[in-house]
């Protein structure tokens, strides 16, 4: 790969304007991009191709010309990777390719399919109801993130996996570090090690019992670990991934969605009057908010063309989902939040073999949480200046770290 002078390239990741969490990339940053597939500078010193059009992002993420393995030299990193043993990466299948990835992913697909998520919808409804009862009984104003957006998906994923919710402070503090690209690499390594040993102990306790339990981890122990198809080290990595992805993403979607819907009262009305409309609203929220704003990193493993650009083997590439979801070739008035539109082509869950495995769960949680909130707290309103709300600019998962509300 030839030398590329990075000095004049725009610095990536881009940040949303401080007072506007709904604009993924500022006009000034957009004007610096010299095409739909263009080079940008990375905070770690290198550069990456940035792919921004909907059709190019789809082609790239579905192509087997790209690797998702972040341990490869030259992979586009947003922070220096911590000195991590191979053991620390075991089971982390979102960073694997080909058969190795498929083998682990396929052990989980049935768990998250729509018909199985439908079975736990009553549980999600109960969790939302209980959380709202506690929230309503508390003081006003209150932080909707800490009091509702975070506990709901955390309780649900804990129940699904078989992880005690009582330990949530422990794993939530460490997930924040793991997702923060400004975190010290050593702090990241410690957070991974702490979470892996916690989950390792939990899995050992389940294995030691006569019946490992009727939850996802228990079933994987019975059906995969005991027959020798899956090693405990791999199961720990899979559990880590599901635990973090399972609460951070939905929590931040709920927080940002509420802020947006407070500016669109007719949509709240719609959710309250006709909850059947909620599916379409949720799809548009996913498109418009696209909380994975720093994009999906890959590395070309052979020469390939994307959007008319020749990308050579070894070169780093990043799919910018947030701009692809604002592509005017696919979405009319793409910059507008329009809950009546057909948003189904959005790429908020990614695309290709790594597309979010938990998307049926995420959709169900968002629908039930937002319709529950609309029904129970019709007078909900913001209790802070929207420009002052703390944003998660450095997190892999964008969102609000606080959302003061009253009702």
């Amino acid at each position: 790969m030839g030398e590329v002078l990075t000095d004049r390239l725009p610095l990536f990741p881009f940040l949303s304007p401080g007072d506007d969490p709904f604009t993924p990339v500022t006009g000034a940053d957009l004007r610096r991009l010299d095409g739909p597939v263009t080079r940008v500078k990375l905070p770690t010193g290198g550069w990456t191709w940035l792919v921004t059009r909907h059709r190019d992002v789809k082609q790239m993420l579905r192509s087997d010309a790209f690797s998702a393995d972040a341990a490869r030299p030259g992979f586009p990193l947003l922070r220096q990777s911590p000195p991590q043993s191979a053991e620390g990466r075991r089971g982390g299948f979102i960073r694997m390719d080909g058969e190795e990835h498929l083998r682990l992913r396929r052990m989980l697909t049935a768990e998250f399919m729509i018909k199985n998520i439908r079975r736990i919808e009553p549980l999600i409804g109960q969790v939302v109801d209980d959380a709202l009862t506690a929230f309503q009984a508390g003081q006003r104003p209150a932080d909707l993130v800490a009091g509702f957006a975070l506990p709901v998906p955390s309780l649900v994923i804990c129940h699904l996996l078989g992880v005690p919710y009582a330990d949530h402070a422990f794993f939530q503090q460490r997930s924040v570090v793991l997702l923060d690209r400004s975190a010290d690499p050593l702090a990241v390594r410690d957070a991974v090690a702490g979470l892996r040993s916690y989950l390792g102990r939990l899995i050992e306790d389940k294995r030691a019992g006569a019946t490992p339990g009727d939850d996802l981890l228990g079933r994987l122990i019975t059906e995969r670990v005991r027959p020798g198809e899956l090693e405990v080290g791999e199961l720990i990595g899979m559990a880590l991934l599901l635990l973090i992805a399972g609460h951070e993403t939905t929590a931040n979607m709920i927080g940002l969605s509420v802020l947006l819907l407070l500016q669109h009262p007719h949509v709240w009305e719609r959710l309250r009057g006709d909850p059947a409309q909620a599916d379409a609203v949720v799809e548009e929220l996913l498109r418009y908010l696209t909380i994975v704003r720093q994009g999906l990193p890959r590395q070309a493993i052979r020469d390939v063309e994307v959007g008319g650009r020749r990308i050579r083997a070894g070169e780093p590439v990043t799919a910018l989902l947030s701009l692809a979801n604002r592509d005017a070739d696919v979405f009319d008035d793409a910059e507008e939040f329009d809950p009546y539109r057909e948003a189904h082509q959005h790429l908020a869950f990614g695309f290709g073999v790594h597309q979010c495995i938990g998307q049926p769960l995420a959709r169900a949680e968002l629908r039930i949480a937002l319709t529950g909130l609309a029904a129970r707290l019709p007078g909900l309103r913001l209790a802070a200046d929207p420009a002052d709300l703390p944003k998660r600019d450095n997190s892999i998962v964008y969102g609000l770290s606080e959302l003061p509300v009253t009702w």
Partner: protein
Amino acid sequence: MSGVAADRDVCVGAGMCVLTAPDLFDQDDEGLVVLIDESDPDPALTQRAVLLCPSGALRVTGN
């Protein structure tokens, strides 16, 4: 007549087909795609499912 074919070796069980066209597609005990009804599916719905399938496991067949 056009139809749809599903390649289970390629499927990653994301469930987009079931979300899009629940009368045409299902997922089995492994979470992988199965065709429910291969007779004369709605071409618009089939096309949409093919477009949304993240792994490329679906394709339109026939003429």
